[in-house]
């Protein structure tokens, strides 16, 4: 009987710790999770057909999104590419691509979400991309 009581107390304690831990998840973490999961849904609906469920692309027709160097170095330009479309030669993982991505009608917050998703999937780990930052980047579109 004692053992039961002890394990019950243990269970309650553990639950408490979990609750505290979860609620202590920082606001930043929550914000990231929101962007990331919204971005995942947008990716599935608007990008996955072309770029693939694992960001693998399609042969030499559509470039992959798993070249961490490319995504990292071009991060400020990505919002422009996705909003206005992209055309011309690019090199990704030493493979050459010359295709055309159509423009999209995504709002800045949606662009931020989908960028947060791809920047933290397929091997990328670049942290959150916020809506304000996207709006800033869009001003610099060529």
């Amino acid at each position: 009987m004692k053992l039961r009581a002890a394990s019950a107390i243990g269970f309650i304690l553990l639950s408490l710790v979990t609750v505290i831990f979860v609620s202590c998840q920082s606001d930043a973490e929550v914000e990231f999770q929101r962007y990331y999961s919204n971005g995942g849904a947008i990716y599935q609906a608007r990008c996955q057909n072309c770029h693939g469920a694992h960001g693998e692309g399609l042969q030499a027709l559509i470039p992959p999104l798993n070249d961490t160097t490319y995504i990292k170095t071009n991060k400020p330009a990505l919002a422009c590419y996705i909003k206005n479309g992209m055309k011309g030669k690019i090199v990704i993982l030493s493979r050459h691509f010359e295709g055309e991505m159509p423009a999209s009608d995504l709002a800045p917050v949606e662009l931020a979400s989908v960028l947060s998703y791809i920047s933290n999937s397929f091997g990328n780990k670049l942290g959150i991309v916020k809506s304000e930052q996207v709006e800033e980047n869009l001003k610099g579109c060529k």
Partner: protein
Amino acid sequence: MKNFIGAIAIILLWNACKFNGDHKTLPILGKKQAVTKTVDGKTTTDTVYQTIPAFKYINQYGDSITDKRLDGNIYVADFFFTTCPSICPVMHRNMLNVYNAFKDTTGFKIISYSIDPQHDSVPVLKKYADKLGIAGNTWWLLQGTKNETYQLAKNYLVSVQEKNPAGEYIHDGYFILIDKQKRIRGTYEGTDPKEVNRLIDDIKTLKAEPGETKVQ
């Protein structure tokens, strides 16, 4: 009680296995017609199934391709266009699995009809084929006339339509399996990898079908 459940489980399993046995045959789809013939005073009734009619196209190598070139072949058909922003990339990502499974098989072909022949000329189709990583004569990308293609699509039970105001073509993503007698033996949602695995299984079944010899 335990025995009872066990017995049911065995019956269920046994039945499930029956479906996967060697005797699975694919259905014959499309319109059917009963044709009654009288030969030597004997009247017989045959079922005549819908078949793919004659057609004439050009492939990515600039070769003329008619239905005759597919005589004696099992083939899979789909409808696409090279600049398709929506379902075609995923269709052809999945079709590559079919291609890789059967590219060294004689008597098997894949044909993709372009529904945008104005843009998808022979050089455009060739470039697309190269980028897709396909070579040889297993998978043909075909350019024809728009009218013919739209009519032909109906015979494959596929729906394609003119460009909508947004400049997109609305079309089905089905893969259609055709037997050596040019009858429709299966339709598969080309955007769904599971459906495409079913297609790969069905091609194996069809290849093994004893009746799969040219009649007439």
